């Protein structure tokens, strides 16, 4: 399993690209035709088929970095890059929208508007260590008390743990908001004794970077959530699928996995339960689409990461046909905390009828972008104030509450509460909790073009309407001001994509753009 992608990643790391001779060597050694390898090397963004031309600075081209003046910053870097012989490469969102405009050298992030930082990154392209934050989401105050929930549940009734999750009402934090207990129960009820737990750590949508902080600051909770899931559903194998840009976070996670193994939390006999569970980390070879869970599975099976038709869902038939539980990083961390503290603790975290809290990634034109842990039921206005308000006190123009794939709302939505249902009622969605604030006066059409380009760039190409339609939409937008006819065609194209794409990417690819056109029209009227 995953031998081909592992071989390719190793070759890429060794040579800096995939030379023909290396591919032939792998093909012969593994006994696969060369086209199998080519199908992978041409799909994944981490691979290249041409040798690199000296050192390379990857620069993010997506919405938060555009808002932060990426173009000007890159231009200003021109003399430095020329002096050092550095090539520029445009890449999709790096998950560093809070340090926009963002770039990276190797896996070392750099702030493009800070020339000294870019120079340091080029001089030493190793990710830097930073201290971990302690969050109120962590039920453990000190190191010895960690993994307390496993110790408690290891010998108990696994179904009782799922009951606690059900009582908490925890929902998936990766975007879809599916009830976590129901997902666990579906996999627990499968009869095949060989099951898999996967932690989806592949957040890649522009504006989304909260799992980065969870992985960095709370890796023990992510691991504990996976172990508890394994014990509850009867799985012995766990895989963390993490985007390759999160190298510093991967190291933190691997270090914590070693700690958990040494403590007997991972291994053949989890905390004396008699059950085995262990975790391996798989580094994604690149691409937003892999966050879609069936594309992720395809990748883990050494194929191009193209989403599968559903049903069957992964809970019944996932990795190599095995029942597979796939949860988001944050979901697993909260599940562990709930099983440590109880459902009542989770309910009491939020005021009124809401329950629990959520890591929100805040970016765009705010004074202090970053990850904030807020109770559900907090309003977008309160979230904005907690982030120091808008940069330079500018009025709010538009808000995407759930990342670049969510519909943009007007400033009227500031009093909407953060929640799955409340933001849907407000006309958008919570998604993974990635809020992008746009200041009044922003060119919304230009933002819409950035977002649409992202989906065009990241479309896997499996569904023709998505592959061709996103490209067509970008072409129309790049051609200049939109005529009413072209806008009508865009709306029809959106209908087509929504109805004929098998995964969320194509289904929503043009929706943010259309919502921005609506906001722009309102602005013009008001």
């Amino acid at each position, binding site marked *: 399993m995953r031998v081909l992608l592992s071989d390719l990643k190793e070759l890429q790391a060794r040579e800096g690209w995939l030379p023909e001779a290396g591919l032939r060597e792998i093909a012969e050694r593994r006994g696969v035709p060369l086209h199998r390898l080519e199908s992978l090397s041409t799909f994944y963004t981490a691979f290249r088929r041409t040798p690199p031309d000296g050192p390379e600075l990857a620069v993010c081209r997506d919405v938060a970095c555009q808002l932060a003046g990426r173009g000007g910053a890159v231009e200003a870097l021109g003399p430095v890059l020329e002096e050092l012989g550095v090539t520029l490469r445009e890449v999709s969102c790096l998950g560093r929208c*809070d*340090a926009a405009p963002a770039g990276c050298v190797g896996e070392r992030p750099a702030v493009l508007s800070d020339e000294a930082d870019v120079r340091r990154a080029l001089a030493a392209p190793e990710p830097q260590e*930073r*201290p*971990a*934050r*302690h*969050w*109120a989401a962590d039920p453990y*105050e000190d190191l010895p008390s960690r993994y307390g929930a496993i110790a408690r549940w290891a010998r108990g009734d696994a179904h009782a743990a799922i009951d606690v999750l059900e009582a908490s009402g925890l929902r998936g934090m990766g975007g879809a908001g599916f009830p976590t207990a129901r997902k666990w129960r579906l996999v627990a009820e499968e009869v095949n004794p060989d099951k898999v737990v996967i932690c989806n750590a592949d957040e890649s949508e522009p504006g989304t970077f909260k799992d980065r902080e969870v992985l960095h*600051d709370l890796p023990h909770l992510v691991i504990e959530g996976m172990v508890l899931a394994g014990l509850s559903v009867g799985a012995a194998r766990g895989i963390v699928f993490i985007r390759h840009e999160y190298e510093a976070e991967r190291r933190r996670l691997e270090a914590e996995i070693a700690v958990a193994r040494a403590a007997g939390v991972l291994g053949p006999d989890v905390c004396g339960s008699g059950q085995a569970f262990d975790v391996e980390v798989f580094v994604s070879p690149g691409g937003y689409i892999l966050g879609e869970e069936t594309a992720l599975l395809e990748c883990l099976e050494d194929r191009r990461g193209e989403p599968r038709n559903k049903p069957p869902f992964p809970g019944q038939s996932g990795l190599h046909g095995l029942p597979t539980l796939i949860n988001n990083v944050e979901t697993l961390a909260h599940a562990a905390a709930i099983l440590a503290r109880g459902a009542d603790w989770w309910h009491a975290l939020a*005021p009124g009828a809401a329950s629990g809290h959520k890591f929100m990634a*805040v970016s765009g034109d705010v*004074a*202090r972008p*970053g*990850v*904030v*842990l*807020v109770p559900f039921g*907090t309003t977008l206005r*309160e*979230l904005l*104030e*907690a*982030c*120091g*308000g808008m940069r330079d006190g500018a009025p709010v123009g538009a808000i995407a509450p759930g990342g670049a794939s969510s519909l943009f709302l007007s400033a009227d939505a500031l009093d909407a509460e953060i929640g799955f249902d409340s933001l849907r009622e407000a006309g958008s969605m919570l998604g993974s909790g990635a809020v992008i604030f746009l200041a009044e006066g922003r060119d919304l059409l230009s933002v819409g073009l950035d977002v649409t380009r992202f989906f065009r760039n990241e479309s896997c190409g499996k569904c023709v309407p998505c592959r061709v339609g996103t490209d067509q939409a970008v072409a129309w937008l790049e051609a200049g001001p939109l005529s009413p006819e072209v806008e009508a065609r865009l709306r029809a194209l959106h209908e087509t994509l929504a109805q004929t794409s098998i995964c969320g990417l194509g289904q929503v690819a043009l929706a943010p753009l259309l919502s921005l056109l609506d906001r722009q029209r309102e602005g013009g009227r008001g």
Partner: protein
Amino acid sequence: MAEVGAVVVCGGRSSRMGRPKALLPWRGRSLIEHVVEVLSGVVEDIVVVTSDDLMLPPLAARVLIDEEPEQGPLEALAVGLAAVQAPLAYATATDVPFLSRDLVRAVLDAGGAAAPVVDGFVQTLAAAYPTAEGALAARRLLASGRRRPLELLEALAYQPLEPAQLPGLRGARGLNTPAEFLEAVREDEPGATASLEFVGRPRALCGVDALRVPVGTLASVLARAPEPLALCEGEQVSRPYLVSLGGRDFVRDGRLPVGAGERVVVLDAAAGG
């Protein structure tokens, strides 16, 4: 991006001290300048929250006005935490002359909401607060009529820090009265003096320009004036005289503290100096 910041709360009325604590003299400048200087060795972003009637000296910090100083320190914390750029901030009062960088570092090292607990009391103004979460929770508490910073720490699931883990814990202790301040001054500089200066008619009467006198309350300092000057009646400056403290305010209350190196200038109201 700065990793840690600081909020200095200095909007209190300093009613027991009798003069603004932020402006008390300390090692040749004001206490607020001293505190900001100590913090600047540890954190990159410092926000001072003050009431608008307090004229602070220029500081290496961003100064924000607390529009509702009557709301107490929680309001000031809400204002300050919303403004700090870093995700975590050390919050302190201004009346902490013995604040040390070691203490600030140790408290911030907790990595999240944390406060020393001394003799069972949680030191809410020697504590670390996550800035965004802290600003949000403070606003919520204020909206529901609650004003105690301890409730803010509780809402943030703070880590209590044992005194044994912390260096320089004196830096957490505030000074509320002239006696506490003077004790600190004398400990910091045994034999500390202030300058008692005479201008115009008072100078003509006693024939002296200036005297070095031990620090103490204003009444004790004025009692050092040579004959025939009788500058105090009980706890009040005598009527014909004007006394300027620190070259800044005219004062009458003899209980006010006079710090090290401070200038006490005596004039005559009747003669216009």
